Every structure is written in C-alpha cells, then in structure tokens.
C-alpha cells in the first residue's frame, strides 16, 4: 500500500500549550480515513497543521505528501499540490457569489464549466438555480454554507480532501448524501481524511484512527476503532494512565 500522506511524530504547541503530542498517521492512496475522538482531542488542530494554517507551524515532526516533504510549504503551495480543507465552521464571504466561489478551486486547471458548477451543487443536494447566484454570506444558513464549502472542494478536484466534521450542522436525512459524496471523492481518485463523530461516516471508511489528547491512540478497522472508542475511551482511560500509542 502506498501512502499519499504520512505524518511522523508531529508536535505542535499553541500559546505555550502542547496540543499535538507526537501524531503518527498514514493515509493511503484513494483511502477514506476517518479520525474519531472526544471533543478537544486535537482533531481540528491536526487538520489545520496539515493544511499549514498560520499559527499552526509544527514544533517537531515531518509531513510527507505524495513522497515529498511539505513541512515548509505555504497553504497555497500545499493546495496546488492537491491538499485542501473544509472547515468545521466555514467562513462567510460577503458579496462573493456561490458561482465565483466554486470556480476558485478550478482556476489552476483551466476553469470550470457551468455544467460542472451545477453538478457540484447537485452533489451536495442544493438546487443550482436557487443557489448559483446567491452570496456565500449571512443570508445562508450554517448547513447551506457547509454544503457549499463541500461543493467548492468538488470543483477543485483535490488529491487529499481533509473534511473537518462535514456532518456537523447537517440534518440527519442528509447524512447519507455526505457519505455518498465522500465516496465520490474516492471514485474520482482522491483520498479523504474525514474528522467525524458519526458512526455512519466511520462505517463507510476504509480505515479509522482514534485520537486522544493529542496523539493517535490506534488505527485500524473502522468498526473496531469505533467500538474501542465507545467502550474504552469514555470516560477517557488516559485520565487514569497516559495512553500508549498503538
């Protein structure tokens, strides 16, 4: 199995507090890999560090993407290599039209057709005629903005999509569509690293990792990892004795 992403001993502090304490993680080529773990475990922090956001420059460790060390690369450079991120809480863009937002990710490879824009919206279950000319601003609900952010990743055609809780704020009925969407990314040749609290999404993954207090406790079969998390981690064992990485 070849890995698209391999994270070795990633350590990161913020405001003097160690949040990632030696993360080791491997994501395979065309693999759907879910990260599960309690609130505050460091899942979003890991996502931000992988994307290279400002203030998330690692203290130690290495990030290898597609065989290349990306540790020193900017967000834009990482994006151009095919990494992208959907935020747990997406940004609002006053005045920016949905169609222009969706087209941004496709700029690098010759733009996007009207039909591709529409198709991306249909994939996230939004009616193109209703949304294409609206603003990605305050007039959209949180759930609508999340869907539109996912659509903006579809048009970008990344190699690795990091999705931070794509299910949060999205109604249960639509959970199936999110699962389908994640599978479409895979069919289109991408790998997906998805942070989630939903067992439906974990179940649809090829692999899962359990994060606890800034480390990956264990990785493996998604159902086994979910079970382990449910039965052994809550209340978190690590509060009694520090966790040992599997």
């Amino acid at each position, binding site marked *: 199995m070849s890995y698209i992403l391999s994270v070795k001993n990633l350590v990161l502090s913020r405001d003097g507090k160690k949040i990632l304490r030696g993360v080791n993680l491997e994501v395979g080529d065309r693999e759907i890999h879910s990260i599960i773990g309690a609130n505050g475990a460091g899942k979003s922090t890991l996502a931000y560090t992988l994307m290279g956001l400002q203030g998330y420059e690692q203290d130690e460790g290495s990030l290898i993407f597609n065989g290349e060390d990306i540790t020193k690369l900017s967000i*834009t450079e990482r994006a151009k290599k095919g990494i992208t991120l959907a935020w747990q809480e997406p940004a609002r863009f006053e*005045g920016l*039209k949905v169609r222009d937002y969706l087209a941004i990710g496709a700029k690098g490879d010759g733009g996007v057709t009207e039909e591709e824009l529409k198709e991306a919206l249909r994939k996230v279950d939004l009616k193109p005629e209703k949304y294409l000319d609206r603003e990605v601003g305050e007039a959209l609900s949180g759930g609508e903005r999340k869907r539109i952010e996912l659509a903006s*990743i579809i048009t970008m055609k990344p190699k690795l999509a990091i999705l931070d809780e794509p299910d949060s704020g999205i109604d249960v009925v639509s959970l199936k569509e999110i699962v389908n969407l994640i599978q479409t990314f895979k069919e289109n040749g991408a790998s997906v690293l998805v942070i989630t609290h939903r067992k439906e999404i974990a179940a649809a993954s090829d692999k899962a990792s359990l994060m606890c207090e800034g480390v990956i406790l264990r990785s493996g079969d998604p159902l086994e990892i979910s079970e382990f998390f449910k039965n052994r981690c809550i209340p978190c064992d690590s509060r009694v004795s520090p966790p040992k990485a599997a």
Partner: protein
Amino acid sequence: MSQITLNTLPSEIKDMDAAYSAAGGDAAVLHDHELASLVISGSKVLNANGVEGIVLETQETEHGVDVKLTIKKGYKIPHPVHLCFGLIPQDGLQEIMMNFVAEEDAAVELVAHCTFPNAIKIIHRMEAQMHVGKNASLKYTETHFHGPYGGAQVIPRAKVKIEEGGSYYNNFSLVSGRVGSLEFDYDVDAEKDSVCEMVTKVYGKKDDKIRIMEKVSLNGENARSVIKSRLAITENAESEFRGITEGHAPRSRGHVDCLEVIQGNAKAEAVPIIRVDNPLAKVTHEAAIGCVDKKEVETLMARGLEEDDAIDTIVKGMLA
C-alpha cells in the same frame, strides 16, 4: 421632450462614450431614443433626451451645467434614466447643480456615471436637491471612475427630502481606479412612513483621501432608514466616515452599518452617531474596522489562490 444635440463635434461624443464605458456604463443606452438620458462633458450638454412623464431642463453655466429633472405626478418610468457627467481632459473644473423632483406617486430609477478617466488636476462639484414626493420612489445609483492617477477631487453634496410614504434609495460606488480625494456629504429628511436606504462603497489606494458624511433625520412617524457603508483602504489611503441618524418620531427606525477593511499603512476612522429624542424611536448602529478575515483568506488559499489574490477576491466581494 425630444432629443437635443447641441452643435457637438462627433469626436466629443466618441470621447464621452469611451469615458462612460470606462466607468462601467454601456454607451449604447445614451443613444437609444426610447430611453431618457443626459450627457454632460465639462460645461457642455452633449445630449439631453426626455421621455413621456419626464421634464428635463438644462442650462449651461461658466463651469458646468444646471440640471432640473422632474418626474411628473403619477408617472412610473419603466426604464432607468441614464446620466453621464464627465471631464475628458487632465485638468478642469466641473460644477453640476442638480434638482431632482419625483412628484406624488411617481417612480424612477436614475443611473449616473461620473467619469474622469484622465484626471490629474480635476475638481468635480455636485450640489443636488432631491425631492421625493408623497408615495413617490426615487432610486439613484451613482458609479464613479476617476482614472489611474489619483488627480480628481470630487465633492458630491445632496439635500434630500422624502415626503410621506416616499422611498429613496441611494447607491454610490467608487471601487475601480483611484479615488483621489472624495468629500461625500448627503443629508436626508424623512417624513412619515418613508423609507431611506443609502449605500456607499469605496476602495481607496495609495494616498487617496475619503470623507463620507451621511445624515438622516427621521422626522415622521414610522420613517425607516439604513445607512450602509463598505470601505476598503490600502497603502497610505485615509478614510473618515460619519453616519448620523436621528430618531425624532414615534416608531421611527434607523440603522447605521459601517464595515471597513484596512491593509498596509492605511488609516480609518468610523463614527456612527445616533440621536434619539422620542422614546418610541429606535436607532441602532454597528461599525467594524479591521484587516481581512483570516479564515476567509485561508479558505481561498486552501483552494489554491495566492494570499494577495485571496485578499483581493474578498475585498472585491465586499464592494460588489
């Protein structure tokens, strides 16, 4: 009123058409006899075309033109009236005195472009009186283009009166090219059941100076207003915003909303002032000055944009 074209050289018309296009207008509308339009170059009226329901009078003066535009009682003008004010040379003075009247129950949309594409030392002064009659509606959109050199000094001033049940919408935009110096000053009196909405959008660069002063007095019961300002300034530009709303009558409602984005060494000051002397009136405000939101920038970077392009996209969206 019919089309008047006053001893004008074709080249002057061509130059103004080009300047109008540079400011974002579609010059074809200025030559369509079905549409009302007015084109003023310096102190010369190049074209004045009225349609049924509109009385358009112009008087050339030493440095400009006096304009009186009246929408007759009850007329709802189906197409926008296009106005173009410009100065083609690098220097000069243009003074426009405007008197707009929308009589009772009339409705009109005025689309104005003010264009000074070669400005190096130009002064454009506009003094306007606008009267929105009972239950009338006046929508006024003004788009400016001052060219790339920062050599325009533009002073638009207006006194607006909205009668009972009338509505007034003003949209001022100066977002491409340089500003130079802008001193914008609008003062509105709003009577019973009237609506007033004023939106200004300006993008300042280099050493541009922007002063925006907007005031609404809600004099009549149930009068409502919004003052909305979106400013982006960068490099050494400076801006000063004053948005004043006074609630003098029961159930009058007003809101002042100013959002500014600054970059580089730019300096911004925003002062919303709200005064209320009637316990049943309510006026609110919000003002924020800051850099471009980090999450917005990083989201666009994560889709592959360079940081500068990401900031540019966000600012253009805000000013769109």
